[in-house]
């Protein structure tokens, strides 16, 4: 407030000095009240995070205190009916699905971003960029539906199973994370000054040499940021994975063998789970929440690093 002009300090234009002053004091309080109201609104984001942590944590906490963190986090078997709540196979499932999707999706997404920012003629760009934005808007359940009916039979032919499994999930998730990674990578490439490119071309470098030796190294941290956020999207993705992954809570056995992830198992079990089983599902939600928070924190630390180095 201090650097802004306040009404009390200003001469009146209309000559109603005393009157204006009275209104101004009321106005001053109104302004202060409004400012605090807005701060309260902004604090809703903090409240949201705290509420999620408290309420999901409250429901899930008994799994740590009664079953034990070791049995829960590192237990090798998920058999809720027999009181075995080991989520290690599910966690490994989530990692397998996420890593595979990143390996498939990252080259495609970074390639698309480089294409958009460095290569595409304006006309082509005006088609490709909206396409990527619309890909981000397609609901995950539609991706799951598409994967179930189109990809699954193809994968079934390739692997000899039913087609439910990591490979189908990798392909679907790879498509789903492309918009996230591509948009952020393009932003990173855009923030490189144009002079850098001109300098590279002036030395006789080809477009490819400029991209591979100058631009991609310069945008490195931004691209890592993009991949981490894509990873967050992949590990938290629920419906699309659930519909194609097969939902067998065991360890990874092969690309075409059914698997289960933390997210898919929650949706599968929630409708009928009760007692400690239900608690375990909330415990899994805490783990997912902490993982996604950790990824956001990593991105923030990276961007601080980038500010310090530049």
């Amino acid at each position, binding site marked *: 407030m201090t650097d802004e002009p306040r009404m009390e300090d200003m001469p009146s234009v209309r000559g109603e000095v005393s009157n204006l002053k009275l209104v101004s004091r009321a106005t001053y309080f109104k*302004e202060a009240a409004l400012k605090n109201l807005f701060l309260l609104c902004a604090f809703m984001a903090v409240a949201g995070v705290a509420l999620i942590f408290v309420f999901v944590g409250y429901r899930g906490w008994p799994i740590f205190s009664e079953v034990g963190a070791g049995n829960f986090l590192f237990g090798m078997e998920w058999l809720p009916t027999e009181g075995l709540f080991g989520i290690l196979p599910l966690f490994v499932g989530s990692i397998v699905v996420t890593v595979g999707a990143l390996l498939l999706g990252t080259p495609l997404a970074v390639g*698309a971003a480089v294409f958009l920012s460095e290569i595409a003629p304006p006309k082509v760009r005006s088609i*490709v960029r909206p396409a990527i934005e619309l890909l981000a808007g397609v609901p995950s359940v539609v991706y799951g539906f598409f994967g179930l009916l189109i990809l699954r039979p193809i994968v079934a032919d390739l692997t000899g199973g039913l087609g439910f499994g990591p490979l189908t999930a990798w392909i679907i998730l790879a498509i789903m994370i492309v918009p996230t990674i591509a948009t952020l990578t393009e932003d990173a490439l855009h923030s490189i000054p144009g002079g850098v490119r001109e300098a590279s071309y002036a030395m006789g470098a080809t477009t490819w040499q400029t991209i591979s030796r100058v631009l991609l190294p310069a945008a490195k941290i931004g691209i890592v940021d993009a991949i981490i956020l894509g990873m967050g999207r992949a590990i*938290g993705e629920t419906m699309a994975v659930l519909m194609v992954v097969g939902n067998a809570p065991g360890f990874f056995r092969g690309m075409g063998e059914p698997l289960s992830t933390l997210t898919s198992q929650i*949706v599968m079990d929630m409708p009928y789970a009760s007692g400690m089983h239900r608690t375990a599902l*909330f415990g899994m939600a805490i783990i997912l929440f902490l993982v996604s928070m950790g990824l956001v924190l990593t991105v923030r630390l990276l961007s601080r690093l980038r500010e310090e180095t530049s």
Partner: protein
Amino acid sequence: MRDMKRITNALALAVFWIAGLTTVVVLGAVILYVFVNGIGHLNLAFIFTKPHGVNAEGGIWPMIVSTLYVTGLAMVIVTPIAVLAAVYLAEYAVQGRLVRIIRFAADTLAGVPSIVMGLFGLALFVEGMGFGFSVLSGALALSFLMLPIVMRTTEEAIRAVPKFIRWGSYGLGATKWQTVSRIVLPAAMPRIITGLILATGRAVGETAVVIFTMGTMINTPLFPSDPGRSMTVHLYQMAMEGINLPAAFGTALLLMVMILFFNLSARWLLRRNRRMQG
């Protein structure tokens, strides 16, 4: 040597072209597939009648109402809070620890997996506050999902308003709130609405949040306390049970049409606004 350089370059560029065009092909494939299989089932009776029988024959009217109801209510809840929060961050806040915490919280909220948001809604709104499986529970949970999105787009919209317009307002003796409410927000309005439309599109396509907060019951909700089943949940259940695939395609197509409509109208609004500003 020089030939090598040229060939490598040409090959690399070809790869980038393929990467760029693949995204268009994939989008085209998804849209075309849903369109070709769904268009035959999409008619007025499908949209405006209720489903019946074990195979969910008939229409999907209750799901359309539930989807629009829960999304609309979420938007009504989130819009004032998110816009005023963005006003604080863009106009009032002084850079410091408080702002850093708020931004970190918003980023975290944006990154929370939707299934976690669903369980949170179940724990707090459905069971904790006793709203039950209802449109209200669903809308409250969705509003937490939309909050960071609307906050970010609104803040960007406010920051895009030129500084000198504010100076003009202050120069006339206006207070901060007068400047914000009568000058800055109206100028930023088209972009704020664009952000709201995009967030709405996101909420319409959300499944994991609403399945545990609004429920799965086929019902045409009248009051916010009524349960319902969103189109996404309907599609999920039909696809997983393998029943009535034509209706599943019809639902998927209608869902895609709605989301495309939201996205394209947001783009149109943004473009029109840009043209008007020159």
